[in-house]
């Protein structure tokens, strides 16, 4: 469906055959997860206790503690609550394992001590004999968990760094490249991105409460510049947008929420330019992302995301005279599809993930199309309103949290000069990071 464009036939065929190769590669890759099916319901190798917390305000006062992996009932585990002041154990009155509502497993334990815990003492919780789901024997070694007695003081002060999946979900991205060859002048490319999200309005929805979408202010930049004539057109994107995420409340719209989970609107100002900045457009763009409910199973999950939008603005600097007879006005629609293939049910990350994005720009006013000569100079091909398409497919193989092997394919035409990107392949190793705001875990 993605490739039913009205391009010249030879290009379309070329694109289809290329995509077929990519699809075949993906299909071949998908064999690996099914080969690993035997490991699918594996017993967790390193289960742990998580989030132990003394809750004196509950009746009765109890320690709640989570498990990293599900457990089935009944359980006959023995618990030990050690007071490090004196090293004595606190007698335990009762232990419960509340089931997740609507499920047959539990992910936590509620431990009621015989006497209240002292707020200035340090307690550790130990368990022996707990049997996790898919295991036949109790977990052998589980580290003791310190019981938090109060909210951490530094809960709002810590910034931590963690891996991001790709460029799109990174808060900062920095990828300088130097290309050189004997007898040629070196070329430089800088691909960088920074964004900061600040909430303007917290979301609120549900039965009997006023509906508020989530509204964020997301200032930043998205910049890719290069003096390499073989690189694709530059795009300088200044983000001055407001992002509005409108979730579909399941209780208010039960049927609609089974299909659409949210609509995300991302309006923003964009300055788009070719790689030599000879053609520059100032654009206001607004894209609406319709988030559809994903589908699939344990080994394969598909996330569709249709997009509609518009772009309007004017040409600030033209490569050739009279190529913009009117203001810029485009109606856009497209589709993003995310596909994840998992090696095994117990694995925390997908083995392969595929990102496919298609966008068609319908030009309501004429815009130019350029071709590029061997020296990288732009040659005007035509001025018209024919639709302009762009397709990108990315395949990632996750080596670990910070490193991924990637293969990418691109075909299409991008503004402002719409030089054809003709079956471009990219292979590489990606190192990614994301700036995250996360509370500390130090107990008071």
């Amino acid at each position: 469906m993605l490739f039913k464009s009205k391009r010249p036939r030879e290009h379309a065929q070329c694109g289809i055959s290329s995509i077929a190769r990519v699809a075949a590669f993906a299909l071949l890759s998908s064999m690996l997860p099914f080969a690993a099916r035997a490991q699918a319901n594996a017993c967790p190798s390193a289960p742990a206790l998580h989030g132990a917390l003394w809750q004196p305000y509950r009746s009765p006062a109890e320690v709640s503690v989570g498990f990293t992996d599900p457990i089935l009932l009944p359980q006959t585990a023995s618990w030990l609550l050690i007071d490090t002041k004196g090293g004595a154990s606190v007698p335990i009155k009762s232990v419960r394992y509340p089931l997740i509502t609507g499920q047959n497993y539990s992910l936590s334990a509620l431990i009621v001590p015989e006497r209240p815990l002292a707020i200035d003492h340090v307690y550790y919780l130990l368990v022996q004999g707990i049997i996790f789901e898919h295991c036949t024997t109790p977990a052998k070694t589980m580290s003791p968990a310190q019981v938090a007695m109060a909210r951490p003081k530094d809960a709002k002060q810590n910034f931590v760094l963690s891996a991001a999946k790709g460029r799109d979900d990174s808060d900062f991205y920095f990828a300088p490249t130097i290309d050189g060859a004997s007898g040629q002048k070196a070329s430089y490319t800088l691909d960088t991105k920074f964004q900061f999200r600040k909430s303007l309005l917290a979301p609120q929805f549900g039965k009997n409460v006023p509906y508020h979408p989530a509204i964020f202010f997301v200032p930043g930049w998205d910049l890719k510049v290069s003096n390499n004539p073989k690189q694709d057109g530059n795009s300088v994107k200044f983000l001055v947008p407001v992002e509005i995420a409108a979730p579909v409340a399941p209780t208010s719209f039960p049927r609609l929420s089974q299909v659409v989970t949210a609509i995300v609107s991302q309006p923003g100002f964009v300055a788009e330019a070719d790689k030599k900045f000879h053609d520059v457009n100032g654009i206001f763009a607004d894209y609406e992302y319709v988030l559809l409910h994903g589908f699939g199973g344990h080994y394969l999950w598909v996330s569709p995301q249709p997009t509609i939008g518009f772009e309007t603005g004017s040409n600030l600097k033209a490569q050739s005279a009279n190529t913009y007879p009117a203001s810029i006005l485009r109606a856009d629609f497209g589709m993003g599809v995310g596909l994840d293939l998992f090696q095994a049910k117990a694995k925390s990350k997908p083995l392969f993930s595929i990102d496919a994005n298609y966008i068609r720009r319908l030009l309501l006013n004429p815009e130019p199309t350029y071709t590029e000569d061997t020296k990288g100079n732009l040659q005007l091909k035509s001025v018209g309103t024919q639709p302009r398409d762009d397709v990108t497919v990315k395949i990632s193989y996750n080596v670990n949290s910070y490193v991924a092997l990637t293969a990418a394919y691109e075909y299409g035409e991008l503004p402002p000069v719409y030089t054809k990107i003709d079956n471009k392949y990219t292979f590489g190793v990606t190192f990614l990071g994301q700036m995250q705001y996360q509370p500390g875990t130090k107990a008071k």
Partner: protein
Amino acid sequence: MPPKRRKPQSNPARTRKTGPKKPKVKPNKDGRKSAKGPVRPDPSIAKKRSTRAISVAADEQLGADQVAQILADCIPRAGGNNNEIVLTKTLQSYGFHFQNQVDTLTSFIIGDADFGVRRYGFHLSGDALNFAAPSTTLSDLADAIQIKATP
């Protein structure tokens, strides 16, 4: 260690000075006070409030059981799959492939009065879960919910 001295619940001198509180009598629409005495709150409204916002003390935190329930309820409703909750897994493992989908999940956790933190009478700021990305593990998300949610 000596037991901590507790602060008295109320100031007795002040109570004597002001005297016992008189029950407030709400006037009717026509301005006359009701002969039946003080207006009692509608029990149906009180019941609704109690189910929506369970009364909580100042520094209460969500328990591990409540956080697990929130994740189990919000993940499928925000577009993810119905797989069992395993805290070591990433959001991508539950079908949150795009950042927009993750933002939707955090909107459900923060804002859904029926399945998010609000169901337990807790509140999270709009920025509290901004760090979440497809590569974020559920344990990181659970930690943030437990530590940052306030009554």
